[in-house]
């Protein structure tokens, strides 16, 4: 399915800074800039992937959009409404339309609840339908994600990892959300099960028109599910482009490094491009100028002082680099 072009969600300059406190008086001595000015849009029925090394802020971006981590700055616009101006009731209706699937299918399901109650919880919380309708909806959802409705009385630990992830997806789908944040949806699963879950996600997108914001470090997964890809480095997006473009021809040196370091199926292919330095700088003390200049083979003096902004290149591609 080709995504619609009007943005459903637009994120502008999102920031999440965690204070670093020290000393007896717990004075703030600095901040971890986990997300430091991230902007992107997400269209209806589109899958946008956030990729990057661990600690680059990709998961935090997802959590901040879910309201699970408090953003310290920036604007989020959802279907024409500004989210920060939302009052409590409106926030609840926003949460109905945006859901999350977690990475770990073991800790994301309450071990003391039956599957029926886990999937029903969203309906109970938002008071959807009568008791009978909710029961019916649970059966329907279980079927939809490929579980047998007669397993509804089981506890989560009686299921395999893949089945548990299906339960998590059924819970996220219960309220018919417009957007599902998938935080590393398959990285905790066996490779043989990953494909099944990814196919389920794309079937659901085709049938229900749901948008995904997928957070992943697995480029294979990203290439399989995404329409567009955003590459993050130290809390910033350094390149955002349609999937085919970014995989065929990465523009930002960091994107190139990321693509080259993914293992290839061809053993004769060698890394042709390598970073000059493998140490990832800390998010508490980011390098001046372009944050990537400490590792970039193309870095020049301008990179050390001037922070490059995202700017348009060829169609649909934005890159933050002085040289590419």
């Amino acid at each position: 399915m080709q995504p619609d072009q009007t943005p459903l969600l637009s994120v502008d300059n999102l920031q999440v800074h965690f204070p670093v406190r020290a000393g007896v008086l717990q004075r703030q001595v600095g901040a971890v800039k986990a997300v430091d000015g991230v902007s992107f849009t997400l269209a209806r029925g589109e899958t946008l992937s956030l990729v990057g090394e661990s600690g680059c802020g990709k998961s935090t971006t997802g959590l901040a959009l879910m309201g699970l981590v408090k953003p310290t700055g920036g604007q989020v616009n959802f279907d024409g409404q500004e989210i920060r101006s939302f009052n409590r009731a409106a926030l609840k209706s926003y949460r109905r339309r945006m859901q999350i699937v977690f990475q770990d299918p073991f800790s994301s399901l309450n071990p003391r609840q039956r599957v029926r109650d886990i999937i029903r919880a969203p309906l109970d919380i938002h008071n959807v339908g009568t008791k009978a309708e909710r029961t019916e909806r649970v059966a329907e959802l279980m079927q939809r994600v490929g579980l047998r409705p007669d397993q509804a009385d089981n506890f989560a630990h009686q299921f395999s990892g893949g089945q548990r992830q299906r339960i998590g997806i059924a819970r996220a789908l219960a309220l018919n959300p417009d957007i599902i944040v998938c935080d590393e949806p398959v990285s905790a699963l066996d490779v043989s099960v990953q494909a099944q879950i990814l196919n389920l996600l794309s079937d659901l997108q085709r049938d229900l028109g749901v948008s995904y914001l997928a957070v992943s470090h697995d480029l294979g997964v990203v290439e399989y599910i995404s329409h567009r890809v955003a590459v993050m480095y130290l809390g910033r997006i350094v390149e955002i482009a349609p999937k085919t473009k970014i995989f065929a021809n990465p523009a930002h040196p960091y994107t190139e490094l990321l693509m080259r370091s993914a293992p290839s199926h061809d053993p004769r292919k060698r890394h042709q491009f390598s970073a000059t330095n493998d140490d990832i700088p800390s998010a508490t003390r980011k390098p001046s100028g372009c944050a990537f200049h400490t590792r970039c083979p193309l870095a020049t003096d301008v990179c050390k002082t001037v922070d490059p902004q995202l700017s348009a290149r060829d169609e649909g591609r934005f890159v933050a680099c002085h040289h590419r």
Partner: protein
Amino acid sequence: MRLPKAFQNTSLMVGAAISLAIILCAIFAPYVATHGVEQMDMRNRFALPNAGHLLGTDNFGRDLWSRMVFGARISLTIAIISVVCSAVVGTVVGLVAGYFGGWVDQLLMRITDIFLGFPAIVLALAIVAVLGPGVLNVSFAIIVVAWTEYARVVRSTTLVLREQNYVQAARALGASPIRIIFKEILPNALGPIIVLASLGLGTAIISESALSFLGFGLPPPTPTWGWTLSYGTKFMRDAPWLSIISGATIMVTVLGFNLLGDGLRDVLDPRQLSRGGAKTK
């Protein structure tokens, strides 16, 4: 897997057997007792344990076995009331402090510290001295001291549980804090609460006996274990079994509840560690 493992735990089984025996004695006291509680037999004062009086008699010729059996009722009533109430109060305080954190946590935990700062028995004595004797007043004196333990343990459990993804998922769904606390967190925090409660029964019985021993418990002629122990000391030369038997009764009862609690901890805790983790088998 669950039952066989529990049955293999010796301290759990012994503790459960002792506790159950004492609870049954208390419930069926009129049938288990051989004499009336206040039935005096002046010709048989200070009788040694014999066939007619299983544990002998006291200075009024009252049957000690029957007094111990009825004493179990009082001790257990007070212990159960105080454990249930302090568990409920402490659990709610711990859940709220742990879940909300910040100043709520600070405030509630400092209040807890204030209660912990008092020497327990002195505080209980003062409360009974002000309120006067009575089952509820003695229970209240014990609750005031005992709830802090639950609050601290439940708070630390809550701090761990609230970071679990299923709690995050409930938040993402827009669940209210009350729903999250009682439906998502509390069911997973029950293990340590159950362990504390069974250990707490023993502690409560000790506290009640201590108050009775010092004369701040239920007034005579109520057959409390602590008071029997106390006035038995007056006849230590002539009838040492009065104090020895009532003391031993208290000891065995407390031992039973402690073994039960330790056993429950062994059975419940490893599970507690793996709960929510990957190794739930």
